């Protein structure tokens, strides 16, 4: 079950019978809208006719509108956002179809990024539209204000925001005013002037009053709409209007107080009682009224109709006139006169009625309002899991925290859900304290599912607080959570798979990921399923099954496509691993396109931080491969900022290692050396697990010509990779070994290592590991050609071999022939490489390059590298 959407919140109450047309104010609102102002703010105290004014304007406006009546629960950003989308779907029914999947995530995405999707959709609407937020003063959550401000800053010209409130919202009103982006109506604008008061009392309420009477009513009420209307109602049944007006004008009594008393006094006792009791409720229908007013002789349905017709401040909440509420001001005044005991009694009865009619959420709210904690707890046990599935963690946390702690602790499932909400709203420290408290108080007969849930969440919390992801608690939690628990099991299976993977338990992790996505699919949790599918695909790639990895992604794209056959945003997340794999195969253009598609989907869904990192990393590699090193570095800088913000330690480390790889390739050794000194101070501990930072360190040693150290490190990494059997790690380590061995003069062993790598990589086309292994491997690669000729050719780009001319060292034209190293350097210099680049390419120092070049100039009898290059070509020393 998901939490039901209250349709009554989208209903713009029709202007009540007998409400006054206010064409001048309507015109101001309409002109402001046509002028493209972003916001119409109607800010005035209760009873000034804000809602009536706006519904009247919209009924006469050229714009369409989406209406949302806010309540206190909309302080939960997820709930507010959900209702916002549903309100806008009245305009655009296909809006944000993936929304439920996203809000169903354990860590709700930043809603701002989801708002962008709405804003983009709204920008394409043909008809201008007003989005009305009524009762905005009930919003106090900074998160919701921030959402509204974000929306306000980006609303397309087709959309105007209309805010009705009793107090100015904390939005940048002064700036909007200064930029003429605000239409503003305040109390002074909404007050009825003499002419309007006259029309209201005479034309709308059918009274016949002398001008002086209208004048004194207007003065006394100061044009306050609620006051004038209440006065009119009293006058309609008054035997002596003149006396009424005289008394009213002569008293100091608070206007509404006085008039309400008058109106109530004019009603018979049962009706008065009916009003008092039903006013306790936020909304009501005839059956609910009958429930809380059973002893009365009044038939509820007729009474409601009568109240509406008498304009006694009941406001219909739907077309069918089934649900009503009282005007907020009157309801508050009526409630303040009702004693606590009565209010609680009414709420209790209402709770029972809602429960019988199946609206458990409303039943739970009423039970909480009645302070009937045991009943509330019983209801919440059913409502809270639904709130969790709807992503409304903050609302649900609010309900749980409204329970006295002993009651909460005596319901272990509620206590566990409180932990869930704390964890997934990022309140980790509070979660930790809550776990500690629970450990000592949870009864031994706590259901296994709840124990398992707590264990799993605790493991998660420890990881979020900086620890490793431990597999043991997750394993035990999986034992306790039911086999078919499609809510908890997919999450814990995924986490467990990730936890055992670094230890090389590939088969077990694979099995977990597969189970996780199948169960999530059975439980209709597409995002959890996609997360597990992507994890599976990455695992397959790592373990050497690239073809299967690609197939898993392609299957995801097929399974999660919309009616038009295009993958849905959730399905498009599969493009992230797919793009990475295409890069591995060396299909750069296709990779680029998929990576972009995946990143766009992650952004659309607000899941950039969680999903996009592998794709961004792959784009960096791709840019570097295409020779755009500054571009690649700039992208990395961006990623580093993101990682810093999201506080994900693992991502931060990966970004740093990637940057060092790029620096090394650019021949910029100094930053890499500094990084290494920071990341690995002191002697290295024995290598037990393959680790990318260590791989980068080994490559640095190679560039630093600390070849033996490099070889040792690559060899340890190779052993670690052997233990897990992961192909991508083995390739990286083996190729590193080959380079180090070659530099150490152990050419046959180097070639052997290189051949081995080629044999491993060729069948499924793992090309990128060879490119990442550095220039020396690229230079050596042709020598391993016979191991897999096509594969090697595809990497070297060599045309089917026409062998180079034999070593030209014995060229007769030279007195002293050039050595092999000198020829190598000369060729690179002739190709336009700088000394620094040559040094990097050949793993030698800058000084060595210069020394070689001087010798070359001497042997050739030239003074510059241009002359050297020209002569060398002439002598066909180089190509």
């Amino acid at each position, binding site marked *: 079950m998901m939490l039901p959407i209250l349709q009554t919140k989208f209903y713009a109450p029709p202007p009540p019978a007998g409400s006054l047309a206010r064409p001048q104010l309507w015109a101001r609102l309409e002109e402001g809208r046509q002028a493209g102002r972003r916001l119409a703010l109607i800010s005035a*105290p*209760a*009873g000034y006719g804000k809602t009536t004014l706006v519904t009247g304007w919209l009924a006469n406006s050229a714009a369409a509108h989406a209406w949302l009546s806010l309540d206190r629960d909309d302080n939960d950003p997820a709930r507010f956002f959900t209702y916002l989308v549903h309100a806008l779907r009245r305009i655009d029914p296909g809006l944000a179809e993936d929304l439920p999947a996203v809000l169903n995530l354990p860590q709700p995405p930043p809603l701002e990024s989801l708002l962008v999707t709405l804003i983009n959709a709204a920008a394409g609407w043909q008809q201008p539209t007003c989005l009305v937020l009524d009762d905005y*003063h009930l919003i106090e959550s900074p998160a919701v204000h921030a959402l509204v401000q974000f929306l306000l800053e980006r609303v397309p010209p087709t959309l105007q925001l209309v805010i009705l409130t*009793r*107090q100015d919202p904390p939005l940048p009103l002064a700036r909007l005013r200064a930029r003429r982006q605000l239409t503003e109506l305040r109390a002074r604008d909404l007050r009825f002037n003499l002419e309007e008061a006259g029309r209201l009392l005479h034309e709308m309420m059918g009274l016949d009053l002398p001008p002086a009477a209208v004048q004194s009513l207007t003065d006394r009420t100061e044009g306050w709409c*609620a006051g004038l209307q209440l006065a009119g109602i009293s006058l309609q049944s008054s035997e002596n209007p003149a006396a009424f007006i005289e008394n009213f004008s002569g*008293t*100091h*009594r*608070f*206007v*509404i*107080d*006085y008039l309400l*008393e008058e109106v109530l006094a004019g009603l018979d006792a049962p009706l008065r009682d009916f009003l008092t009791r039903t006013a306790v409720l936020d909304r009501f229908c005839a059956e609910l009224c009958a429930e809380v007013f059973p002893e009365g002789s009044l038939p509820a349905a007729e009474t409601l109709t009568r109240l509406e017709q008498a304009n006694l401040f009941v406001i219909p909440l739907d077309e069918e006139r089934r649900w009503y509420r009282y005007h*907020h*001001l009157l309801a*508050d*005044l009526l409630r*303040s*006169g009702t*004693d606590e005991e009565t209010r609680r009694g009414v709420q209790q009865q209402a709770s029972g009625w809602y429960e019988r009619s199946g609206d458990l959420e409303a039943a739970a709210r009423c039970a909480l309002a009645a302070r009937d904690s045991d009943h509330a707890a019983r209801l919440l046990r059913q409502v809270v899991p639904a709130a969790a599935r709807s992503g409304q963690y903050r609302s649900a946390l609010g309900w749980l925290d409204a329970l006295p702690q002993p009651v909460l602790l005596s319901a272990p499932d509620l206590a566990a859900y409180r932990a869930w909400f704390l964890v997934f709203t990022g309140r980790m420290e509070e979660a930790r304290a809550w776990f500690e408290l629970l450990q000592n108080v949870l009864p031994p007969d706590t259901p296994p599912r709840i124990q398992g849930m707590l264990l799993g969440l605790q493991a998660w919390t420890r990881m979020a607080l900086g620890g490793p992801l431990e597999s043991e608690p997750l394993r035990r939690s999986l034992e306790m959570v039911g086999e078919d628990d499609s809510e908890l099991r997919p999450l814990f299976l995924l986490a467990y798979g990730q936890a055992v993977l670094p230890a090389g338990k590939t088969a077990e992790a694979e099995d977990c990921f597969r189970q996780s996505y199948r169960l999530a699919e059975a439980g209709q949790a597409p995002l959890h399923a996609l997360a597990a599918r992507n994890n599976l695909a990455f695992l397959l790639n790592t373990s050497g099954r690239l073809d299967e990895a690609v197939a898993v992604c392609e299957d995801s794209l097929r399974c999660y496509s919309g009616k038009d056959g295009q993958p849905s945003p959730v399905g498009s997340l599969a493009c992230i691993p797919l793009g990475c794999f295409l890069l591995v195969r060396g299909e750069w253009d296709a990779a680029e396109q998929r990576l972009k598609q995946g990143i766009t989907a992650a952004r659309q869904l607000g899941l950039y931080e969680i999903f996009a990192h592998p794709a961004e990393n792959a784009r960096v590699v791709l840019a570097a491969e295409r020779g755009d090193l500054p571009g690649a570095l700039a992208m990395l800088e961006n990623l580093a900022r993101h990682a810093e913000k999201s506080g994900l330690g693992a991502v931060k480390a990966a970004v740093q290692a990637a940057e060092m790889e790029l620096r090394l390739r650019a021949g910029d050794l100094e930053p890499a050396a500094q990084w290494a000194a920071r990341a690995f101070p002191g002697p290295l501990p024995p290598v037990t697990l393959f680790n990318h930072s260590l791989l980068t360190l080994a490559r640095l040693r190679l560039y630093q010509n600390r070849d033996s150290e490099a070889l040792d490190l690559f060899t340890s990494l190779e052993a670690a990779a052997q233990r897990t059997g992961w192909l991508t790690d083995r390739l990286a380590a083996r190729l590193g070994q080959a380079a180090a061995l070659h530099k150490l003069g152990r050419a046959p062993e180097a070639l052997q290592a290189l051949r081995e790598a080629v044999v491993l990589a060729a069948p499924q086309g793992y090309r990128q590991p060879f490119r990442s292994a550095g220039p020396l491997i690229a230079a050596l690669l042709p020598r391993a050609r016979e191991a897999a000729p096509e594969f090697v050719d595809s990497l070297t780009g060599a045309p089917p071999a026409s062998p180079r001319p034999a070593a030209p060292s014995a060229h007769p034209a030279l007195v002293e022939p050039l050595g092999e190293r000198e020829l190598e350097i000369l060729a690179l210099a002739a190709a336009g490489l700088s000394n620094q680049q040559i040094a990097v390419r050949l793993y030698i120092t800058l000084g060595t390059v210069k020394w070689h070049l001087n010798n070359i100039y001497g042997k050739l009898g030239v003074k510059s590298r241009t002359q050297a290059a020209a002569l060398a070509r002439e002598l066909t020393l180089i190509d």
Partner: protein
Amino acid sequence: MTEQTNHTQIRIKGHLSSRTARAFTGFQVQLLPEGDTLLSGPVEDAAALYGLIFRLRDLGLELVSLQQHAGTDPPPQPGEPA
């Protein structure tokens, strides 16, 4: 910002009925001859004060002035608010 219980006086336009005054339990209600109502009582802290102001807003009451004195006791003279 109020950190401790303060005696608070709130002046509201018009005379409140006893029904509406019930919304302010714990407060002494005084109908002033000039036609305003003076609510006096202890307010525990800033949060309680804002709660009170929002209650005024929701009942459509017009706030004329608000004064606080340290301590729970009312000042010797209710006096005119500043």
